[in-house]
């Protein structure tokens, strides 16, 4: 049996008490569904002398509001709840898709949306057993002093592997955080730092309380995910786009890429050619080609990083076509892939 190290397990009944418990116990970590934390801790990828469970907090999983005015998702809502919620499935479709694409049904019944936003960045040299990591001499992220992906790099290049994080950016979501010193609200984009180790701006005692989705009466969105198997796997690439419409024209276009860096990578500034237009096949393909630029996959996840880079424009094209109501797989960039030629 692969067992957890000895630790204390606290179960506060309020968010305030949870934040205080983490602040009081050095090294303490928050746990909700545990589907990311528990396997990582079993493999001793970090230490946690104290775990503070969020599962004893009542009302932490509510989904409220309506698309016309905006919605708030309690951070403790399970990925299954988010994936199957009717209003989310229609008005904030990319988020429901992303939640539904996470791993397996079992994991989606346990894992929470708040936890998925905070998935510990992954790397072939980090998400391994203690014995494996010892054999390769450890890496920067845990117990070592060099990055095994980029040996001269002063920083860790572990990959942001959350499905919901790029969607949160694309939807313009905001997060409420509650820490021992009080509550604050900010853009989801501000949660993330471009570093594989210190990957958020969140303090240890900050609890994500709610995810605020802006009013979206005329928004369409889509999330496309690349992975080896159609279930189980983390993304090796994710493309999230959200388009706001007025009179059949794109009014605002936002997008972000997952698993393309240590944080979700914003590409909204590269989608502006869509604004004021009724996007057709060619415009979408051109925009997708340009929008892949900030993706910097390295050789530290499944599949070759050359292929992941090449597929970035394809995935962006599929997501944009999907959000425009076009057949996602009928675009010019998909036609250039082997699967596109077979189709």
């Amino acid at each position, binding site marked *: 049996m*692969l067992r957890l190290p000895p630790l204390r397990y606290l179960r506060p009944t309020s968010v305030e008490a949870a934040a205080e418990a983490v602040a009081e116990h050095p090294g303490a970590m928050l746990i909700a569904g545990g589907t990311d934390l528990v396997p990582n801790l079993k493999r001793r990828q970090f230490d946690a002398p104290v775990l503070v469970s969020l599962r004893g907090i009542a009302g932490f999983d509510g989904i409220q509001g309506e698309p016309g005015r905006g919605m708030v998702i309690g951070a403790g809502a399970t990925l299954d709840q988010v994936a199957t919620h009717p209003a989310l499935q229609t008005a904030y479709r990319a988020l429901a898709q992303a939640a539904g694409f996470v791993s397996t049904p*079992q994991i989606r019944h346990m894992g929470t949306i708040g936890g998925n936003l905070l998935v510990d960045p992954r790397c072939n040299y980090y998400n391994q057993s203690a014995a494996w990591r010892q054999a390769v001499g450890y890496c920067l992220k845990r117990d070592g002093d060099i990055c095994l992906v980029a040996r001269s790099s002063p920083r860790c290049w572990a990959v942001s592997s959350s499905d919901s994080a790029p969607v949160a950016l694309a939807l313009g979501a905001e997060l409420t955080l509650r820490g021992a010193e009080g509550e604050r609200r900010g853009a989801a984009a501000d949660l993330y730092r471009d570093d594989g180790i210190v990957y958020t701006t969140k303090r240890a005692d900050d609890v994500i309380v709610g995810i605020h989705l802006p009013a979206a009466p005329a928004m369409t969105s889509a999330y496309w995910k690349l992975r080896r198997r159609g279930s*189980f796997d983390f993304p090796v690439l994710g493309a999230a786009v959200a388009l706001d419409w007025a009179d059949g024209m794109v009014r605002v276009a936002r997008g972000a890429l997952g698993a393309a860096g240590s944080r979700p990578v914003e590409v909204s500034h590269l989608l502006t050619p869509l604004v004021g237009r009724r996007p057709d096949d060619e415009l979408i393909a051109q925009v997708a080609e340009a929008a892949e630029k900030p993706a910097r996959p390295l050789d530290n996840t499944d599949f070759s990083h050359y292929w992941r880079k090449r597929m970035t424009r394809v995935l962006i094209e599929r997501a944009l076509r999907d959000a425009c109501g076009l057949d996602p797989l009928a675009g010019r960039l998909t036609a250039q892939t082997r699967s596109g030629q077979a189709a």
Partner: protein
Amino acid sequence: MKVAVRLRVNGQDTELLVPPYKTVLEILREDLGLTGTKHGCELGECSTCGILVDGKPFLSCLALPLDLEGHEITTIEGLAEGSRPHPLQVTFAELGAAQCGYCTPSMILTAKALLDTDPHPSRAAIQQALAGVLCRCTGYLKIFEAVELAASRHG
């Protein structure tokens, strides 16, 4: 350091003194003797350790006992009614839907969760529901057929 935990497993309340970091999988197998729940990867990647919590498929290898207090845990041992096996157990046996049998408890429990919410699921819905449970004998076809047969007998 051990803590007192009250779990309701297969309709029976039990009180245990266990370390709070002992997973529900370890407790089921080692403290309660319910070895029908198998341990596979123990990292959430195979679902062999699947149980039902309030009727929903859960992974016992990632669940900690204090979080399941007040919830209804069902393991494969809780499926038969006395000496009468669950319809899914009957059809899995009839169609030979188990080869090595290691994933079978989790397959059956996961299928039960599906049939409880969708008594006549499509083949696609069955595939979706069972997508998390790995069978390394590659016997999925018979498994799908056994679920369909159980559904058809349900009337």
